[in-house]
C-alpha cells in the first residue's frame, strides 16, 4: 500500500488519500449537478426550451427549507420535504405563467421569458429574503465527519451520491414503467401529436416541470448542507453548470444528464486539485468544456444528429 501510494504520488504529484478525497468530492458535486441537470434535460426534451429559471428554482428551495426550520420551527426532515413539495409547485406555476402562454410563439420569445423569470425569481428573493447570505440549517447526523484512516470525510459526501442514485432509479421507473411516464415520453417526442392521441399535454408538461423542479430541490437541499451559505444569486452558477452537464450528456437524455453531471463535477474538482494555480479559473472550465463539446459534438456524448427538414 505504501509503495503504491509512493508510485501514485510520483506519477500524479498527489498523495493517494488526497486523490481519493478529491474523487469523492467530485462524485458528490457531480451528483448535485446531475440532479439539477435532469430538470433541464426533461424540460428541453419536452419544450425545446432552456429553462433559465431552473437554477433560481433551485435557490428558492434552500430558502423554503431555511424558513421552515428557522421561522416555523419545524424538524429538519419535515421542512425539507415541504420545501421539495413547494418547489414542485413553483416549477408548475413557472410553466403555467411564463411558458405556457408562449408555447406556440417563436422560440426566442419563450427563451426571453425564461430569462425574465430567472431575474424575477432572483430579485423577488432579494426583496423577500434580503440580499445578505443566510446560514442553511445544519443537520448534525448528515454533516458530521467520519474518520477513514488518516483522512476525515463528511458523511454527506456519501449521502449525496446515495440519495441521488435512489431518486434516479425512481425517476427511471416512473418514466419507463408508468402511464405518466409514457405520457411524458409521448409529449417529448411530439406534443402536438400526443395531444391528438388523447394525452393531456398541459398536465403532462406540468408534471414534467414538477418532477424536474423537485429533483433540483433535492439537489438544492444537499447543496445547502454541503455549502451552508444561501443567497439569492446562489442558483446561477450551479444552474448554468448543470445545464452544461445536460448539454455534455446530450440534452433531452436523462441518463446523459447524469453522466454529464458526473463528468463535470469530477472534472472540475480534479482540475483544481491537480492544478491549484488555475483555481481562479474554476468557473470558466465548465464553459470552456461546454464550448468544446458544442463545437465538436453539438448533440452531446449520447445525442444523435437531428436533420432539419427542407
Amino acid at each position, binding site marked *: 500500500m505504501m509503495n503504491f501510494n509512493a508510485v501514485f504520488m510520483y506519477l500524479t504529484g498527489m498523495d493517494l488519500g488526497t486523490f481519493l478525497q478529491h474523487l469523492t468530492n467530485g462524485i458528490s458535486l457531480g451528483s448535485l449537478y446531475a440532479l439539477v441537470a435532469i430538470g433541464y434535460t426533461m424540460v428541453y426534451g419536452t419544450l425545446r426550451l432552456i429553462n433559465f429559471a431552473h437554477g433560481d428554482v433551485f435557490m428558492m428551495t434552500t430558502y423554503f427549507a431555511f424558513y421552515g426550520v428557522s421561522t416555523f420551527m419545524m424538524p429538519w426532515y419535515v421542512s425539507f420535504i415541504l420545501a421539495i413539495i413547494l418547489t414542485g409547485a413553483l416549477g408548475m406555476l413557472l410553466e403555467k405563467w*411564463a411558458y405556457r402562454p408562449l408555447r406556440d410563439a417563436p422560440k426566442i420569445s419563450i427563451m426571453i421569458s425564461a430569462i425574465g*423569470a430567472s431575474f424575477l425569481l432572483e430579485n423577488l428573493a432579494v426583496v423577500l429574503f434580503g440580499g445578505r447570505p443566510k446560514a442553511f440549517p445544519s443537520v448534525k447526523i448528515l454533516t458530521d465527519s467520519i474518520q477513514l484512516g488518516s483522512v476525515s470525510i463528511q458523511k454527506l459526501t456519501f449521502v449525496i451520491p446515495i440519495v441521488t442514485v435512489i431518486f434516479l432509479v425512481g425517476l427511471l421507473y416512473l418514466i419507463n414503467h408508468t402511464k405518466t411516464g409514457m405520457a411524458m415520453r409521448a409529449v417529448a417526442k411530439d406534443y402536438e401529436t400526443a395531444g391528438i392521441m388523447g394525452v393531456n399535454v398541459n398536465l403532462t408538461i406540468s408534471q414534467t416541470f414538477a418532477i424536474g423542479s423537485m429533483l433540483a430541490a433535492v439537489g438544492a437541499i444537499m447543496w445547502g448542507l454541503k455549502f451552508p451559505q444561501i443567497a439569492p444569486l446562489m442558483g446561477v452558477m450551479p444552474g448554468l453548470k448543470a445545464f452544461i452537464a445536460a448539454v455534455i450528456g446530450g440534452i433531452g437524455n436523462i441518463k446523459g444528464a447524469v453522466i454529464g453531471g458526473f463528468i463535470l463535477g469530477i472534472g472540475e474538482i480534479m482540475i483544481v486539485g491537480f492544478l491549484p494555480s488555475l483555481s481562479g*479559473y474554476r468557473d470558466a472550465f465548465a464553459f470552456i468544456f461546454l464550448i468544446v463539446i458544442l463545437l465538436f459534438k453539438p448533440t452531446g456524448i449520447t445525442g444523435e444528429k437531428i436533420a432539419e427538414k427542407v
Partner: protein
Amino acid sequence: MKQKKTLLTLIAILILFVFVFIADQTLDSYKMRILNLCAIYVILGLSMNLINGFTGLFSLGHAGFMAVGAYTTAILTMPDIVKTQNFFMTPMMKPLDTLHVPFFLALLAGGILAGVVGYLIGAPALRLRGDYLAIATLGFAEIIRVVFTNTQSITNGALGLKGIPVSTNIWWTFGLALVTVLIIGSLINSSYGRAFKAIREDEIAAESMGINLFKHKVIAFTIGAFFAGIGGGLLGSLLGTIDPLMFRFFLTFNVLLIIILGGMGSITGTIISAIIITIGGEALRFLDESMTIGSLVIPGISGMRMVVFSALLMIVVIFFNHGIMGTKEFTWDGLFAKFAKKPLAKGGNKQ
C-alpha cells in the same frame, strides 16, 4: 423630395445638438448623468439589435464585449500615478503601466478590440444554432469575466479599476450615439442589411439565394461587438470605476430588455426604449429607497426596482411581443403620411 428629407434630417440633428448644448449649460450633474446613460444605452441597444434583432442570432454575450471595451479604454486613459495606486497588489504589466492615448483613440481601441474578440468568438460559436448559440455566447462572456478577474497585472483582478478619468461627457455620448445610429442605419439599409434580414427570416432560403450564412453572421456579430465595446468604454469612463462583477449576465439582460421593449429589428424602437428604460429605471429608484409621506416613513425595499424590471420584460414578451415598434422605423415619409392623413402610397419609389 430627397433633398427636402435630407434637409429635415439635418435640422433634426441640429435641434438635437441645441438640446445637448442647453442641457449641458443648465442641468445638474445627476440629470446629465442620466442623459449620458440614455445615449450609452442607445449605442448598446443598437449594437445588440444588429445581432439579435436584425440578423436573428440569439446572442447573450454583450456584457463580455462591453467589458473588453471598458477595460481597454480605462487602461489606455488612466494616468501613470492612478495606475500605480490601483495596482498595489501586483504591479501592472509593462508597457501598459505607462501607456496612454487620447480618449477618442482609447475608445476606438476598445471598440476594435471588442470587435476582434467578437470575431474570435463568432468564428466558432456562429456555427451553432438558436439556443445553443445563446448559451455558448453567454459562456464566452462569463469566460471573459473570469479571465479579467484573474489577470491581476493587466486588469487588477477582482479589485477592479478606480479613478478612471471621467472623459465621457454629453457631447461624446450624444455624438457617438448619433454616429452609431447613422452607421448601423446605413448598414441595415444596404445590401448587407437586407442579407442580414434574409438570414433572420429564413436561413435555408437565404443560403439558397447565395448568401454565405457564416460570413454574414460573423460580419453582424463583429460590428455589434465593436459598438458594444464603444458603449462599454463610454460607460466605464462615465462611472469612473469598473470591476469584473459589473459585467455579469445582468448587464446583458438590461440591454436585452431594451431591444425587446423597443422591438427586435427597429432602430427607432431601440432609441425610444433605451431612453424609457434608462429614465424609467431612475424614476423607479424610489422603490428601493425609503419614502417619507408626512410623518410616515415607508422603508424602501432594495431590489424592488429589479422585480419591476424583470416583470416588465416578461409582460412585454408574453403580451406585446413586438415591442413598441416591431420592425417598423420612423421615416419622414411616414410622418408626412400621418399629417396628410392618408395611407402611404404603396409601391412609391423613395425619390
